[in-house]
């Protein structure tokens, strides 16, 4: 039976020959046979021939702490949005492991190009989470200094940053900080984007440039299955990581809810890049448990059964189970992380309300490095216009 050419249903593998069944696996819900995993949803350590790794108790507790605190940033910001303190918030619930695994695999000299949802990666770069709120509150476009944190501005136009990341990586090549053999000098770039973004021209062009120049860049796609209301089937008919092959570099699919695996895979890919072996595409297979943003209504398009299914794969619960089972939570560790989370929550609540509104006169100031005369005039008129109101008020 041949497939209906106009059908836009999810690919039905039984309509094709055996090859495609093999490609898709029996079900996409579990990520298929190629999924790199080091910790099962039940919290059991498993091993992988290519990406195995030992983790110290310290590291494991660190991952746990990072994920709990990142989730708190997310729930706190969501609550702040509900209270009218933020205009909108891009939630990451369920994507903590993908972000912390990737974020912790970075070295200080590496550079991150985020979307608008990389709150966990920002956390790993030492950015005060309060600084993430400005964009969503509408007081600025991000308060951190990208050069200081090696973490770029949040990017809202889907996919645009993937080209910037590639160009930045090409700059690193020219600066001679790739493949020097000195671990503290060798540097790489990581570009974050979503499954929806994989459809954009910019992302595909980024792949081509990176492959063509062997640029030290890791393409880190969080496949959370949805681009607002559109399921992954609307962006691709093959597993995303397999696209890399067509561009001429390796692709890996990792369990994005497994922080150990995302760490191991990202570290390996970054290392390849730093050594001068070129780009890698990582597809972190995960799920958006929250809404797309606080203005979205996922009940219009998503099955609650899927959400329930993915709750069982919660990235935090599985590390917690592992820590408990192996006696790594003695000495009140879990309580102390909880305590820290509460303090972070308090910091965000209090800090958010006191983020000052910008001075409207500043609208004009940073448009150019050197302000043109015409704009100076516009600013002066604006200031005089404002002043006219207070004069009226004073004389009335």
């Amino acid at each position, binding site marked *: 039976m041949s497939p209906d050419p106009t059908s836009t249903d999810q690919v039905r593998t039984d309509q094709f020959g055996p090859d495609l069944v093999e490609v898709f696996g029996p079900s996409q819900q579990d990520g298929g046979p190629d999924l790199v995993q080091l910790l099962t949803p039940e919290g059991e350590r498993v091993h992988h021939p290519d990406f195995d790794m030992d983790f110290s108790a310290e590291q494991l507790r660190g991952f746990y702490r990072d994920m709990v605190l990142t989730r708190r940033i997310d729930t706190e910001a969501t609550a702040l949005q509900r209270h009218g303190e933020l*205009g909108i918030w891009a939630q990451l619930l369920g994507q903590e492991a993908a972000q912390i695994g990737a974020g912790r695999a970075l070295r200080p000299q590496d550079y991150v190009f985020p979307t608008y949802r990389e709150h966990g990666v920002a956390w790993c770069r030492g950015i005060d989470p309060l600084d993430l709120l400005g964009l969503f509150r509408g007081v600025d476009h991000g308060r951190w200094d990208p050069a200081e944190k090696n973490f770029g501005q949040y990017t809202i136009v889907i996919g645009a940053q993937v080209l910037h990341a590639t160009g930045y990586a090409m700059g690193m090549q020219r600066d001679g900080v790739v493949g020097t053999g000195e671990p503290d000098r060798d540097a790489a770039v990581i570009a974050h984007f979503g499954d929806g973004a994989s459809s*954009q021209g910019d992302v595909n062009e980024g792949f081509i440039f990176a492959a063509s120049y062997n640029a030290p860049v890791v393409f880190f796609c969080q496949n959370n299955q949805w681009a*607002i209301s*559109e399921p992954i089937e609307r*962006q691709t008919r093959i597993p995303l990581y397999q696209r890399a092959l067509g561009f001429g570099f390796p692709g890996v699919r990792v369990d994005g809810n497994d922080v150990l695996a995302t760490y191991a895979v990202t570290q390996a890919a970054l290392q390849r890049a730093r050594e001068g072996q070129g780009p890698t595409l990582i597809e972190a297979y995960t799920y958006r448990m929250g809404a797309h943003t606080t203005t979205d209504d996922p009940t219009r398009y998503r099955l609650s059964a899927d959400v329930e299914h993915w709750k069982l794969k919660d990235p935090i619960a599985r590390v917690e189970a592992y820590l408990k089972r192996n006696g790594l939570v003695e000495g009140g560790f879990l309580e102390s992380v909880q305590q820290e989370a509460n303090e972070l929550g308090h910091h965000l609540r209090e800090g958010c309300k006191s983020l000052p509104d910008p001075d409207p006169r500043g609208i*004009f100031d940073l448009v150019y490095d050197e302000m043109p005369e015409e704009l100076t005039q516009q600013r002066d008129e604006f200031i005089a216009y404002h002043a006219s109101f207070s004069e009226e008020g004073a004389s009335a």
Partner: protein
Amino acid sequence: MKITLAKGLNMGLRKAMEDDPKVLIMGEDVGTLGGVFRITDGLQKDFGEDRVIDSPLAESGIVGTAVGMAMRGYRPVVEIQFDGFVYPAYDQIVCQVAKIHFRSKGKTKMPMVIRIPFGGGIGAVEHHSESPEAQFAHTPGLKVVACSNPVDGYWMLQQAIASDDPVIFLEPKRQYHADKAELDESVLPAPLFTSRVVKSGTDLTLLSYGPTVKTCLKAADAAASEGRSLEVIDLRTLSPLDMGPVLESVRRTGRAVVVHEAHVNLGMGSEIASRITEQCFFSLEAPVLRVGGFDTPYPPSRIEEDYLPDLDRVLDAVDRSFEF
């Protein structure tokens, strides 16, 4: 029936799809979700996935494939999710959509509508509040219109879909759910590419389109209480411009102020001011003044009210006009 602008547009799309089986809708999230503004709500359910097409997340892809669909005899209505996201498709729009009719010596038609929710005032983050109309009005081969109220939304969208030329259709997003108006389908609409006097007056002409028409109507009310009679014209069509009612009005009032949200520099106001100057120089009592967004990027939303032309800034310009 009383409807909002969002409802008017939704009904207009529905009617166009019922009337012509060649009409298709394409865009991000237009299907199950009904679009992020719900303008396409319910249409996929009733017309199916072949006619209301959830596209991959790729604006150049959306417009570029719509070009091919149009070549094949369809009439695609494309939704760009927000004004700031039209740029990935800019190349397709200005190099292909706009030029194919000309390039093919008229043999290939481009009956395409590109709907763009535009303008600010909704407290959004970057790229969600822009006014890119001049970029398109400056491109020969495109027609550009902006609706300002529910009834126009209903009719203008159907007319744009029926047009054999490509139309950039601008929808003032902050008005989507703002006011209701009575839709009486027995009252036939004005032709699409015409401007219209929406409030008559004798002392000064306010010219606007889209979201700021409402601001101008308020300004006219406020001025009336001070004894000034302002005429308000809703331009509705930006390319081609319908200068007839504008020139007629300015010849009577002798004064004009153009109001829009886009940057003033090289904006629609500049074109309108120069046409008025060229064609009714001797009737003018004052130079044509422009009120618009500053020549800066759109600011963070907490101070967008300072950037957007509001009642006070319009009245201030009116005062300045009378000072000449």
